[in-house]
């Protein structure tokens, strides 16, 4: 009887180890994805994401924080999913910031050309 329960317990432990081992094979890709999304959030921030895409930036930062928490809790699947979301949101935030700046430059140039036209008209009177 004792041998049976020991065997059972041993099998359970072994299964548990397998389970944990199976989950921890996510650890490396999750670590990588969290690092990538951290960089993506930084890049978006530098590009002015907070100013031009505040919603996406806030979401990305939250997701990144949650991913870090999940990593600490060894929930690597969850961390990876969150990291991927954070990365996508950060890239969207950055591209919105880039668009806003490009459109502002185009607008400024249009104004410049109008001023130039007026100057020319005035000079030629």
């Amino acid at each position, binding site marked *: 009887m004792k041998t049976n329960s020991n065997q059972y317990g041993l099998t359970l432990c072994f299964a548990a180890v397998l389970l944990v081992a199976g989950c921890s094979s996510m650890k490396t890709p999750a670590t990588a994805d969290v690092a990538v999304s951290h960089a993506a959030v930084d890049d978006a921030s530098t590009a002015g994401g907070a100013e031009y895409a505040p919603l996406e930036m806030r979401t990305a930062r939250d997701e990144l924080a949650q991913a870090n928490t999940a990593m600490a809790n060894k929930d690597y699947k969850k961390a990876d*999913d969150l990291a*991927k*979301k954070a990365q*996508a*949101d950060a*890239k*969207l935030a950055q*591209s*919105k910031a*880039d*668009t806003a700046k*490009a*459109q502002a*430059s*185009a607008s400024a*140039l*249009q104004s*410049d*050309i109008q001023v*130039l*036209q007026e100057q*020319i008209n005035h*000079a*030629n009177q």
Partner: protein
Amino acid sequence: MKKLLFVPTMLTMAVLISACSTVPRTTSLLDQTRSDYVVIQNNPNVERYAPMEMQQATTAMNLANVASDKRESDADIDKLAYIAKDKIGVAKEVTKQKLAEADMTRTTKERDQMVLNQRTNEADQAKANAAQSQLATKAAQADAADSQARAAKLEAELADLSAKKTDRGIIITLSDVLFGTDQSRLNPNGMATAQKLADLLNQNPTRNVLIEGFTDNTGTAAYNQELSERRAGAVLHALQDMGVASNRVSTRGYGKEYPVASNATADSRQLNRRVEIVLSDDTGKIVQR
């Protein structure tokens, strides 16, 4: 008996379940994402300006659709739909950026052309001004040369008339020998002198003359006054006949006043019998005695 019924029921259920599993699962997020995707598909600018981002959005969309076809869980479908939606957003943004950049390139060209045109206009204008200046300078130079020539001519004519420069200006003296024995008419030499004076006045229309007559001290004051006036008048009439306007010529007789010689000898008396012609400045002003 139970066993027999069990198997067909199971089979039927299996068939039903497998029939249901051919219908893909969809979520509201996936539906939204699909309609966002259609928008970028239908916008030719996205493919043109953001082909790489379009490709990435397509790949992500396909992954979400595959998950839907395989009837994976709502959570799993949503994870993929979320990523695809963001990537569709990025494709749109990059398209907008590229359009703004194309606009700037075009505007910059416009501006450069405007500046070039303006500079060309200014250069042409400067050239025209320079050409005009040159013409003006040449004209001024010609005028100056002209003035010089006329001044030289006047000098020559005055010299020919033995004109003298005095504090009253230039004075030409017509001596007694230029008048005939009828003492108040100009003889041919006198007429010739008057002609020279008339020519000078015609060439210098801004100048006027004052003709002053003088006599020696023989005879009465009244006689001499009248004689001096008649002599001055003779010169006036000669000038008028030669085309000089009368408002440019005035006369005065001084009789025996203002002698230039002693009147003691015949020669000195002849010297006093004279007509002096005072030439005005070039504005027509004459200094009175």
